[in-house]
């Protein structure tokens, strides 16, 4: 991979549309500032997003709405402080018309101020706290919200998953608490019950004492949400204690069995049930083409849900610019993006015109070995799920 200031530029052949609508602005470049966590705690997400963006440009080129698109990627080091300054510089110095990226909630919220003041469309690729879309009227999201996933899991478990009593184990930080609250609410609304809420420290978690507690309480299942990397440690300790033979199921948020690390989790992960918006094994021609292109551009790397979200974010930018004839000004762009429907690798998605948040299918999946590799294999689809908190 070439190391350099990553200015990715390429084009979309949209001659039919562009020819008629974009005569006035054809000369001007639309700059899109992309703020990614390339270093720090969320760097694995940053890599996936960068890879997806590179793939998108390789497939679709660098033209949209009759204008050339220039993507400028900057690192926020996984901190809100730097995300804010980098976003400010992208808008004031680099004249970026659109901001995108943002790997965690504080980063997204810090930059939302610039979006609101400068009327800059801000497209969220990862940050999953429901309230982000309220922070600026120019925020759009192509990822997911924590409650969107957790609520579906809470509905599926008692209705179809044959699991009514739960112990929830979540990492003790904002997203973990959000997931716990949304899951509990949904589960109880559908006739289940959370008998205990366990909060695990975020840094260097040791799950042993918590799992001991689980052994004593004997729930039907566990609800688990830990950041992507910690899932492997959790499943390893779960199996070591023989809990996999106890009949207690593991039902997790998609992050736990993320495609990025699923293969390295090995056999302990087999059988874990999770709810999420995307699996690399999703069965559709769009996804097959996406995975093939992604692997080709990135040395066989497997895309995960963050990569799909980044892909869809760039797709949303291109499609919206096609619609506005290259006009990226905040009000016009966001109005055109509202209600947009994308033919995403994860299935059909749309932007809710009321909340500017994503509406998408949430799939229940089970980890299985397919042709020697571990995949989240989808077995139940909940269609067009909206964020339940809005």
């Amino acid at each position, binding site marked *: 991979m070439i*190391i350099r200031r990553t200015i990715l530029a390429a084009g979309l052949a949209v001659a039919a549309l562009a020819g008629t609508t974009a005569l006035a602005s054809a000369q001007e470049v639309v700059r899109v500032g992309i703020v990614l966590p390339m270093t720090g705690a969320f760097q694995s997400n940053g890599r996936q997003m960068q890879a997806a963006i590179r793939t998108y440009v390789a497939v679709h080129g660098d033209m949209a709405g009759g204008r050339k698109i220039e993507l400028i990627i900057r690192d926020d080091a996984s901190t809100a402080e730097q995300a804010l300054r980098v976003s400010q510089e992208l808008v004031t110095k680099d004249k970026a018309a659109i901001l995108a990226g943002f790997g965690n909630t504080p980063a997204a919220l810090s930059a939302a101020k610039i979006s609101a003041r400068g009327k800059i469309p801000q497209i969220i690729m990862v940050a999953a706290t429901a309230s982000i879309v309220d922070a600026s009227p120019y925020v759009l999201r192509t990822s997911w919200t924590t409650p969107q996933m957790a609520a579906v899991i809470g509905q599926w478990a008692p209705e179809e998953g044959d699991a009514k009593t739960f112990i929830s184990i979540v990492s003790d930080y904002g997203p973990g608490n959000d997931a716990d609250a949304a899951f509990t609410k949904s589960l109880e609304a559908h006739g289940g019950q959370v008998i205990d809420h366990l909060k695990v420290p975020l840094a260097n978690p040791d799950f042993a004492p918590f799992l001991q507690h689980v052994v004593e309480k004997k729930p039907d299942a566990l609800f688990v949400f830990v950041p992507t990397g910690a899932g492997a440690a959790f499943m390893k300790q779960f199996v070591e204690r023989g809990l996999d033979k106890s009949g207690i199921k593991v039902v997790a948020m998609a992050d736990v069995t993320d495609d990025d690390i699923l293969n390295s989790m090995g056999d302990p992960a087999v059988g874990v049930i999770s709810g999420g918006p995307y699996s690399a094994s999703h069965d559709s021609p769009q996804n097959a083409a996406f995975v093939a292109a992604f692997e080709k551009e990135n040395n066989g790397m497997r895309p995960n849900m963050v990569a799909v979200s980044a892909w869809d974010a760039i797709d949303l930018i291109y499609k919206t610019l096609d619609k506005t004839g290259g006009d990226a000004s905040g009000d016009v762009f966001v109005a055109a993006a509202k209600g947009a429907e994308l033919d995403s690798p994860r299935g059909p998605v749309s932007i809710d015109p009321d909340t500017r948040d994503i509406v998408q299918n949430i799939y229940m999946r089970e980890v299985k070995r397919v042709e020697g590799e571990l995949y989240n294999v989808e077995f139940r689809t909940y269609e067009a799920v909206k964020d339940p908190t809005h």
Partner: protein
Amino acid sequence: MAKTDMTPNGAKVVKIMRRPVRWSLAEIAFWLLAVASVFLLPGQHLILTEIAGLAILALSLDLILGYAGVVSLGQAAMYGVGAYAAGLYAIHVTGEPLSGLLVGAAAGAVIAFATSFLLLRGADLTRLMVTLGVAAVLFEVANKAAWLTGGADGLQGIWIDPILGLFDFDLEGHTGYVYSLTVLFVLFVIARLVVNSPFGYSLKAVRDNPLRASAVGVPVNARLVAVYTLSGAYAGIAGALFTQTQQFISLDVLSFQKSADGLMVLTIGGPGYLYGGMIGALAYKLIQDALSGFTPQYWQFWVGLLLVIFVLVGRDRPRQFVIDVMARLRGGKGGAQ
């Protein structure tokens, strides 16, 4: 009495005692350059604002490390509390910035004063642990008290009024930079007065040999409490300034990384002459920015490598360079006097 009575050492002492009181040409040039940056580098004001804030944090550390010999890995405690205090003050009381700075200073000073007594209990290693622990505890408190601080999502809804009712904080960061630079200068002048006062000399005595200092009648513990509290106020102001220029706070302000950044830039610039933090902050941030623009994914490797080389080549270099330049300038002038 007469100069001839003095031993060469005595004359040197007098010279050294007098030296820092006068503003040297190098110092004046430094601040003129800082003022010039306001007009000559309008495109860089955002990063310069961050540098000024980091410089104040490093200045607060210099007061305790460079002048009183107190090592700390927990300066983020006061910085973060100052930031949150200023943020909550802006949300719940008023968005007026200058009084917000005072609130940040008071909050930082209170935390520093309350925890300073822990510092009296041990030597360097204990102090490292204690300061680290205090910052870690406050971080966790802020994380848990989401109803007050916004927790991991950060504190939202801060709105800062124009400075003196005239200068609004703009998106390009011009106002923020001039404001930060002014605050840095004022704090620097105060620090300069303090360290060159009898109080400052007694601190240096404590730093060099606490036992001897107490033997000649310096109240060691009282001095340490006082300077740690002052340092806390400085760190609190740095935090408040961060809040006001960014109008957003995340838990990062209380993180270990923040303490480490402060200590690192002070080490780069060299402690004990007040300019170290500023020079270090400038060097570190500019290198970091250039590298992370050049290679967003691997810049930390290069920064790490540069730091290692820097330590191998010698940490005292920047300070020695400044001293040499100042000595040369003074030497030139001294001949004419």
